[in-house]
């Protein structure tokens, strides 16, 4: 088979005004307009969205699962980032 492969685009959909866009899946398309239309046809047949983003898969940079422990390690020893770390005087309200 000598066919050229189409580009893969990742699809992010905002389900309702005010919410964040969420990853839904991907589509194959040759250009951005076609990617948007394909995403609309495939992922929003039942009013699932108010806005769609499409991004070429090759442009997405991901962390590596094997490095999860070391990559996210620095956040674990900084307990003072969490509000529960602090001692509040007895009777303090609205804080």
């Amino acid at each position, binding site marked *: *088979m000598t*066919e*050229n*492969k*189409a580009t*893969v685009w990742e699809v992010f959909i905002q389900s309702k005004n005010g919410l964040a866009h969420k990853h839904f*899946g*991907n*589509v*194959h*398309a*040759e*250009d951005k307009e*076609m990617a948007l239309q394909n995403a609309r*046809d*495939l992922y929003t*047949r*039942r009013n699932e969205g108010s806005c769609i983003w499409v991004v070429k898969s090759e442009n997405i940079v*991901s962390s*590596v*699962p*094997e490095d999860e422990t070391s990559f996210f390690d620095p956040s674990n020893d900084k307990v003072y980032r969490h509000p529960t770390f602090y001692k509040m005087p007895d009777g303090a309200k609205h804080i």
Partner: protein
Amino acid sequence: MSEVLFQEKIDKEQKIEPKDWMPEGYRKHLIRQISQHAHSEIIGMQPEGNWISRAPSLRAKMILLAKVQDEAGHGLYLYSACETLGISREELNQQLHIGKAKYSSIFNYPTLTWADMGAIGWLVDGAAIVNQVSLQKTSYGPYSRGMVKICKEESFHQRQGYEIIAEMAKGTKEQKEMAQDALNRFWWPSIMMFGPHDSDSPRTGNAMKWKIKRKTNDELRQDFINKTVGQAELIGLTIPDPDLKWNEEKSSYDFGEINWEEFWSVVEGNGPCNEQRLNHHIKAHKDGAWVREAAKAYSKKQKN
């Protein structure tokens, strides 16, 4: 990551994602299962597409169009999940065309009357739902998320089928006969959809251990039969199995022997429509080549 760590993750009900380490057997099993599932959605458009131009009313026609479009969508969700395992859409299509990849054998049966649209929605989609609901909890993340989407849409399919067959069952004598005839032809192939008995299904062990499958073929088949018998009774149709009877002790239905010879013969390509289904897919793919080429040429032109 070793196989031990991988299994620990599975046992803790954690999902496996595309970039995670996985045993080669796990990857292979998934590609085979997901692609077979995807091909079934796409090939499954043909027996129903057969009736779009002859639907008995505008309402029925619009519904059938929407349903067939959904099937295309489901196929695409699944191809998309399968591609995350490192196989391309082109390879998947090619494996289907050379007969290396299979699709559900139910679609190798012809749709002879309008009642068959009812039987397919009610029984075939009904059987698929039982399977898909359990697959929502499969261990592979992209497959699981695809299943969640599909299940949301699938119950419309089953209800539209049951509505058709229920309408016909309370219609004229001829219509009722047509409904019963569709049930007679689609019942056994539908319960064959779950595949061979667990004792004859060599891959079940790994699939369960890896939590790709969450229930075995026989468990799913029994679930489906238990759900469906009452639906047939309600609309006055008879399931064509003289051995079907309620078993109080195991509180589920006993049923007759499945004709596995027929099952394997259809899987191996000797069903009434195998050749027609595959040839049509190949033709549609070839006929569409110029559209793909034109789209590519247009996108190149835009860049220059």
